[in-house]
């Protein structure tokens, strides 16, 4: 069996360029790995073997006639199952949509297709992205590649696990409040949630329209930059995409970070944070100091308020977005919604209903203003902010059933920046052995910046990654 599946996007691009191997060989190694490993991980909703083979062949032909489309041409990419892909079943891991074949491509899918990417498969997620574990997928739970008794995080858990287990070269996720960063953290990979409006939501099955942000999950920072470069930009099909020109996400990599002011918010290091997580972040702080960055302790609004704001805003928007699922034009009838979707729609209906709107929805939108102002204030004194991505390492399966707001509690440290529309990058920064576990699990650090500061957070993340080797660690995979 080959080993091309272990390479990064930029390594594959280089090898294809130098004709060390072909796109077909890369795909073959990824498929072999997937068939061997996925029966115990369940990261994929579906492997798109036939189509991917045709796409890889087309990529090789383009290369032969020197008509390469981009650095992603011929590179296998897995796509979260909430992105519409023309005539490929797209379910958002919900029974409700188990018979849905979109007649069009999401903009993210179209851009990747035009760049020559090979779509290796659709990945599992919490149904409609309502969760942080993949346990609320209506089909099955994805396992964490580092310990199959544990969760990969979510909602983009399948995309994160597929990358961590080398079943694809890169993947696409979407984040509403943590759904890229948190699974990347729990699965030990890199994940970039761009600024709200940097990447088009057109064709992404809507969850929380005022925060949904598609983004890459990859093996290193350069790969995330490469994929963002393909995805970023204004889209006439999504009027919330920004007219701001995109950055040069590759030129910023490798620039020194001497003198960069990094904020350390004390409210993000509370008692609920696992000791091993805190230790790993403090080691990262020492690394940043060595690289010449200036560490500044700052104070932010207690993240507990963001949980409440997010819960209200997200449920309200979900109740509106899922109202379109009536079973008349596509999908099944509303009785086929899973419990989590029903629960969220009803809470949102309540917080938007007459008599409760002011107390809940309006109040939440006001506190959202306070969160935005709070970050703006902080960015007057620091350039970026770092914190743990998750208060804990990956939890055992079953954990999400303990509370009705499990996802919100797991995402406490990513919700504030999501509500403010800020970009955030998760990078692996160490390992911590959970109390009841036998394997040390990955710890993730998030780097947040002001809106449209993707270049800066990529620069800081890349500098950290180059000074450490956490991103090169691979899980010991077992096959069933």
């Amino acid at each position, binding site marked *: 069996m080959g080993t091309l599946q272990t390479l990064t996007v930029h390594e594959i691009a280089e090898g294809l360029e130098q004709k060390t191997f072909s796109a077909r060989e890369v795909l073959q190694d990824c498929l072999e790995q997937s068939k061997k490993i996925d029966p115990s991980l369940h990261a994929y909703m579906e492997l798109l073997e036939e189509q991917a083979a045709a796409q890889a062949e087309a990529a090789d032909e383009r290369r032969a006639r020197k008509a390469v489309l981009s650095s992603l041409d011929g590179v296998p990419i897995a796509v979260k199952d909430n992105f519409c892909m023309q005539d490929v079943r797209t379910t958002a891991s919900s029974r409700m949509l188990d*018979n*849905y*074949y979109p*007649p*069009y491509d999401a903009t993210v899918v179209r851009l990747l297709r035009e760049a020559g990417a090979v779509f290796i498969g659709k990945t599992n997620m919490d149904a409609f992205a309502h969760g942080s574990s993949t346990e609320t997928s209506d089909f099955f739970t994805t396992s964490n590649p580092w310990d199959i008794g544990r969760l990969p995080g979510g909602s983009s858990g399948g995309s994160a696990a597929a990358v961590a287990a080398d079943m694809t070269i890169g993947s696409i996720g979407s984040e509403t409040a943590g759904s890229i960063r948190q699974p990347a953290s729990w699965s030990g990979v890199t994940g970039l949630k761009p*600024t*709200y*409006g940097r990447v088009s939501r057109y064709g992404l099955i809507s969850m929380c329209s*005022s*925060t949904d942000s598609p983004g890459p999950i990859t093996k290193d920072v350069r790969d995330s930059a490469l994929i963002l470069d393909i995805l970023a930009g204004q889209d*006439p099909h999504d*009027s*919330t995409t*920004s007219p701001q020109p995109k950055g040069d996400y590759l030129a910023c990599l490798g620039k020194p970070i001497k003198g960069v002011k990094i904020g350390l918010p004390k409210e993000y290091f509370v008692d609920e944070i696992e000791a091993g997580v805190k230790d790993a972040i403090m080691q990262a702080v020492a690394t940043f100091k060595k690289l010449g960055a200036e560490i500044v302790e700052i104070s932010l609004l207690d993240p*507990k*308020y963001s*949980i*409440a*704001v997010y*819960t*209200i805003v997200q*449920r309200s928007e979900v109740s509106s977005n899922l*109202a379109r699922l*009536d*079973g*008349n*034009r*596509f*999908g099944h009838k*509303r*009785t086929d919604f899973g*419990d989590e979707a*029903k*629960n969220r*729609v*009803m*809470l949102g*209906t*309540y*917080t938007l*209903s007459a008599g409760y709107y002011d107390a*809940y929805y*309006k*109040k*939440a*939108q*006001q*506190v*959202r*203003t*306070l969160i*935005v102002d709070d970050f703006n204030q902080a960015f007057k004194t620091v350039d970026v902010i770092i914190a743990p991505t998750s208060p804990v390492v990956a939890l055992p399966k079953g954990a999400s059933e303990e*509370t*009705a*707001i499990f996802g*919100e509690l797991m995402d406490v440290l990513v919700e504030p920046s999501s*509500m*403010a*529309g800020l970009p955030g990058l998760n990078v692996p920064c160490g390992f911590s052995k959970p109390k009841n576990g036998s394997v040390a699990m990955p710890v993730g650090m998030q780097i947040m910046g002001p*809106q449209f500061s993707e270049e800066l957070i990529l620069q800081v993340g890349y500098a950290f990654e180059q000074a450490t080797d956490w991103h090169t660690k691979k899980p010991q995979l077992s096959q069933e």
Partner: protein
Amino acid sequence: MADRLTTEDVARIARLAAMQLTAAEVKKFQGWLTEAIDYIEVLQELDTAGVIVTSQVTGLVNLWRQDQTQSSLTQKQALQNAPATYKGYFKVEAVFDRSEG
């Protein structure tokens, strides 16, 4: 707050949300919704008098495009996922019941 959400309230919310729930489901969601509502009460700790609301974070307002015809889905594509069609239309169940009127 907890006792304000009765099973009747849950049934009313379900009706507003076009969800048909069994009695057992009403009971289950009463517990879940109460837990979530108890949690979101934390916002009342913050003073928001005079604070404007934020619904769009990047500050975009009033975006326009040229009023030009564009290509769209074909009728066949638009109907390809419909469970029932009639002469090129979506076939849906009656929304209003004459006997109620």
